[in-house]
C-alpha cells in the first residue's frame, strides 16, 4: 500500500513537471481548440490520463483476466479468438411473407442469428383489424396477429438450429407462446431451442413507452416467463434487459448503464420473491446496450457493466455461480445518431460505434443501416450494415486479442468512473424502494428527459457537433437515397389471414382457453400454460391481451 502511494506521488511530480516545462509553453503559444472537452454524455474529458488516474485501480481485483471475476476483460477466456460475436441484424417489416424472405436473405449472406422487429400494433397487443391499428400495420416491423402469421414468419427456418431474438415487451408472453408452438409444429425440442425474448417491461415505462398493463401485473407476467422457461425452455433467455431504448430516449452513457443494471437487479429481486432459484434463472438474463458515438465512453460502459453485475450478484445476492455472475449482452448501434442529412455518412458512424461494441466484448451485434433516419432499411442498406460487421471481424485484426483497450489509463479510469456513478444511482433508487417504486415516482423518466434537453441545447449551441447537421452542411445535397415504402395494402392482407384463422378455428376452444387465462391471472397462477393453450387454439394476440386487460386494467402514464 505504502509503495503504491509512493509510486503515485512520483507520478504526480512527473506530471507537474511536464505541465510546467512542456505543456505550459505550448499552451501559451497555441491555446487549445476549446476551453473544456466533453463527451457525448456531456462529461468533461481530461487532457491526459496517467498512472495517477488509475492509482485506485487494482489489477487483480478490478481488472483481472478474461473469464474470471469480475469479468472486466470479458466473460470468455478466449475472447473472440474462440468464437466471434453473433451477427444479429434486427429485421422486420410489412407482412410475415416479406420478413421471412428478408430473414432467408440475411442468413444466406452470412448472418448468424435472427432478430425480429414487430410492428406497433403487435407491440401494443392489438390485432391488424383493430381501428387503432390503422396506418400502422407492418410499418415499423412485421405484423403478427395470430399463430397463423407466426407460422409464415418462420416457414423454412429451423428453430432448433437458428437462435431468434424477439423484440417484444408488453405482450411478450403471448409472442413467446406463439414461437414455442411454431417450434413444436416444426418438431423442435423446447429443451434444445435457444433465443431471446426482449420482455423488458421496466424500460418501457422508463423510456420506450410501449406498455399495456399497469407496472406491477406487467412484472408478474415477466416473472411467469422466467419460471416457465427455467423449467420448460432452459436454453432460452426470457429477458434482455435493455439500455438501448433508455439511451435513445436521451439518457447519458452513465444513466443508460445505471438504469439498465438496476432494472436487472429488480428482475432478480422479483424472481427471488416468486421463489425461483437465483442460479437457475439469472444465468439466462441477458442485456442489451446501445453503441453511441463517443468511442471510449462506450467501451468503458461495457467493461463497467460486466464488473458491476458480477459484484452485485456476489455482494447483493450472495451468488458464487459463475454463470450467474457473467453478464452477457447484445449491442446495437445508436439509431438516434443517424442523420437524414448526407445519409451515407451514417455508414461511417455505424462502423465506429460497432467497433466500440466489439472492443467492449459484446456477445452479439446489430449494425444500423444508413437509411434508418428516413425509413426502414432497404435490402442494399441492410447488406452494407452486415458487411460492416464482417469487415470489423475479418479485416481489422481487433478480434485477434482480448480486451485490447484494457490497461489504457483513460479507459480504466473511465471504467471506474462509470462504476462509481452507477453506484450513486443505485443508492438513490434503492432508497426509493427499488426500480418499480422509482418509476412510479417518475425518477428515471425525469432524469432522461433532462439529459435529452441538455443534449439538444448543446447541439444547438454547436458544442456537440453533428457532421452534416450543424457543421459541414451542404446546400445542395446529393439526391436522396432510395427508401423502403410499406404499402397500406399490408393491413388488408393481414386482416384477411386473421379472418381466415378465425373462420377455421374452434370457437369453443378459444373461449375456454381465454377463460382459463383470466382465471390464472386472477388467481396469481403462472399464465404461460393458459397462454400457450389460447395460442394453439388460434386466439389472436388482441383477444389474449384483451383478456388480460380485463383482469389487470391498463397503464396510464402520470405526467412528469
Amino acid at each position, binding site marked *: 500500500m505504502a509503495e503504491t502511494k509512493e509510486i503515485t506521488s512520483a507520478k504526480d511530480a512527473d506530471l507537474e513537471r511536464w505541465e510546467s516545462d512542456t505543456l505550459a509553453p505550448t499552451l501559451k503559444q497555441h491555446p487549445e481548440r476549446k476551453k473544456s472537452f466533453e463527451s457525448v454524455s456531456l462529461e468533461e474529458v481530461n487532457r491526459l490520463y496517467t498512472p495517477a488516474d488509475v492509482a485506485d485501480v487494482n489489477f487483480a481485483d478490478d481488472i483481472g483476466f478474461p473469464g474470471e471475476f469480475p469479468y472486466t476483460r470479458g466473460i470468455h477466456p478466449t475472447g473472440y479468438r474462440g468464437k466471434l460475436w453473433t451477427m444479429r441484424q434486427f429485421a422486420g417489416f410489412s407482412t410475415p411473407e416479406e420478413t421471412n424472405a428478408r430473414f432467408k436473405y440475411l442468413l444466406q449472406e452470412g448472418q448468424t442469428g435472427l432478430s425480429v422487429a414487430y410492428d*406497433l*400494433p403487435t*407491440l*401494443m397487443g*392489438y390485432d391488424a383489424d383493430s381501428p*387503432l*391499428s*390503422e*396506418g*400502422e400495420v407492418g*410499418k*415499423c416491423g412485421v405484423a403478427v396477429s395470430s399463430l397463423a402469421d407466426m407460422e409464415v414468419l418462420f416457414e423454412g427456418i429451423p428453430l432448433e438450429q437458428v437462435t431468434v431474438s424477439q423484440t417484444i415487451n408488453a405482450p411478450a408472453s403471448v409472442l413467446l407462446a406463439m414461437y414455442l408452438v411454431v417450434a413444436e409444429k416444426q418438431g423442435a425440442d423446447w429443451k434444445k431451442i435457444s433465443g431471446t425474448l426482449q420482455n423488458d417491461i421496466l424500460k*418501457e415505462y422508463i423510456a*420506450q*413507452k*410501449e*406498455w399495456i398493463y399497469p407496472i406491477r401485473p406487467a412484472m408478474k407476467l415477466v416473472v411467469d416467463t422466467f419460471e416457465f422457461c427455467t423449467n420448460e425452455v432452459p436454453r432460452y433467455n426470457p429477458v434482455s434487459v435493455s439500455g438501448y431504448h433508455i439511451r*435513445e*430516449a*436521451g439518457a447519458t452513457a452513465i444513466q443508460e448503464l445505471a438504469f439498465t443494471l438496476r432494472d436487472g437487479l429488480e428482475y432478480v429481486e422479483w424472481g427471488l420473491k416468486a421463489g425461483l432459484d437465483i442460479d437457475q434463472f439469472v444465468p439466462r438474463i441477458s442485456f442489451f446496450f446501445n453503441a453511441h458515438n463517443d468511442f471510449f465512453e462506450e467501451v468503458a460502459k461495457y467493461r463497467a457493466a460486466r464488473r458491476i453485475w458480477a459484484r452485485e450478484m456476489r455482494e447483493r445476492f450472495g451468488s458464487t455461480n459463475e454463470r450467474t455472475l457473467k453478464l452477457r449482452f447484445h449491442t446495437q448501434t445508436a439509431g*438516434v445518431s*443517424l*442523420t*437524414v*442529412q448526407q445519409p451515407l455518412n451514417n455508414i461511417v458512424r455505424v462502423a465506429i460505434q460497432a467497433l466500440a461494441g466489439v472492443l467492449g466484448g459484446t456477445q452479439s451485434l446489430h449494425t444500423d443501416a444508413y437509411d434508418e*433516419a*428516413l*425509413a*426502414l432499411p432497404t435490402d442494399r442498406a441492410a447488406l452494407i450494415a452486415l458487411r460492416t460487421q464482417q469487415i470489423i471481424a475479418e479485416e481489422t485484426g481487433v478480434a485477434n486479442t482480448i480486451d485490447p483497450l484494457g490497461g489504457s489509463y483513460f479507459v480504466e479510469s473511465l471504467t471506474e468512473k462509470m462504476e462509481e456513478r452507477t453506484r450513486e444511482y443505485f443508492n438513490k433508487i434503492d432508497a426509493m424502494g427499488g426500480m418499480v417504486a422509482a418509476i412510479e415516482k417518475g425518477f428515471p423518466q425525469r432524469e432522461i*428527459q433532462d439529459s*435529452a*434537453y441538455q443534449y*439538444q441545447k448543446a*447541439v*444547438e449551441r454547436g458544442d456537440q457537433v*453533428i457532421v*452534416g*447537421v*450543424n457543421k459541414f452542411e451542404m446546400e445542395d445535397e446529393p439526391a*436522396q437515397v432510395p*427508401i423502403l*415504402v*410499406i404499402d*397500406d395494402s399490408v393491413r388488408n392482407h393481414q386482416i384477411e389471414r386473421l379472418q381466415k384463422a378465425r373462420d377455421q378455428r374452434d370457437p369453443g376452444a378459444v373461449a375456454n382457453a381465454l377463460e382459463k387465462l383470466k382465471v390464472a391471472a386472477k388467481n396469481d397462477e403462472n399464465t404461460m400454460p393458459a397462454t400457450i393453450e389460447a395460442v394453439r387454439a388460434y386466439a389472436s394476440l388482441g383477444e389474449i391481451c384483451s383478456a388480460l386487460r380485463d383482469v389487470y386494467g391498463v397503464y*396510464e*402514464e402520470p*405526467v412528469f
Partner: protein
Amino acid sequence: MAKYVRHCVTFTVFTKNQSSELSMESRKIRVLVAKPGLDGHDRGAKVIARALRDAGMEVIYTGLRQTPEMIAAAALQEDVDAVGVSILSGAHNTLCPRIVELLRQQGMDDCLVLLGGIVPQEDVAKLKAEGIAEVFLPGTSTEDIVKFLRENVKPRN
C-alpha cells in the same frame, strides 16, 4: 364528440425578461404538442414542448396515443394557435390529414398543424398539399421551430 384528453398539462413560464416582452404582445402563442398513433417515442415531443415553453409560449402536451379526434377536441378546448404533431412510426400519411380535416371542420381554419418525425422526403409535399403547414425532419433546431411559429401564427386580439 371525442373524449377530451386526460393527460393535458399546461406549461407556462414567466421570466422577468419574457414577461416584459410579453406585455407588448396581445396574447402568448398557444401550442398543443401531440403524439397520435401507437408510437411511444416521445423524446422529440418532450424536447419541443420544453423548448417552446422556454421561448415563452404556452404549451399543452397531450400525452401518448391520442386519436386525431382527441387531438382536435383538445385543440378546440385549449384554443391553440398551432398543433405540433410528432410521429416516428410511419403512420403520418393516415393521421396528419385527418387531424387537419377535423380542425377545419370545427372552424379552426387558422390553426397551424406542424409535423416532426421520421418522414420520407416524398411524403413532405403531399402532406403540405393536404394542409400541414410545415414538416420538420430529424436534425431540425428547436430555434427554427420557434421562429416558424412566431412568423406564421396569425395574431389574435
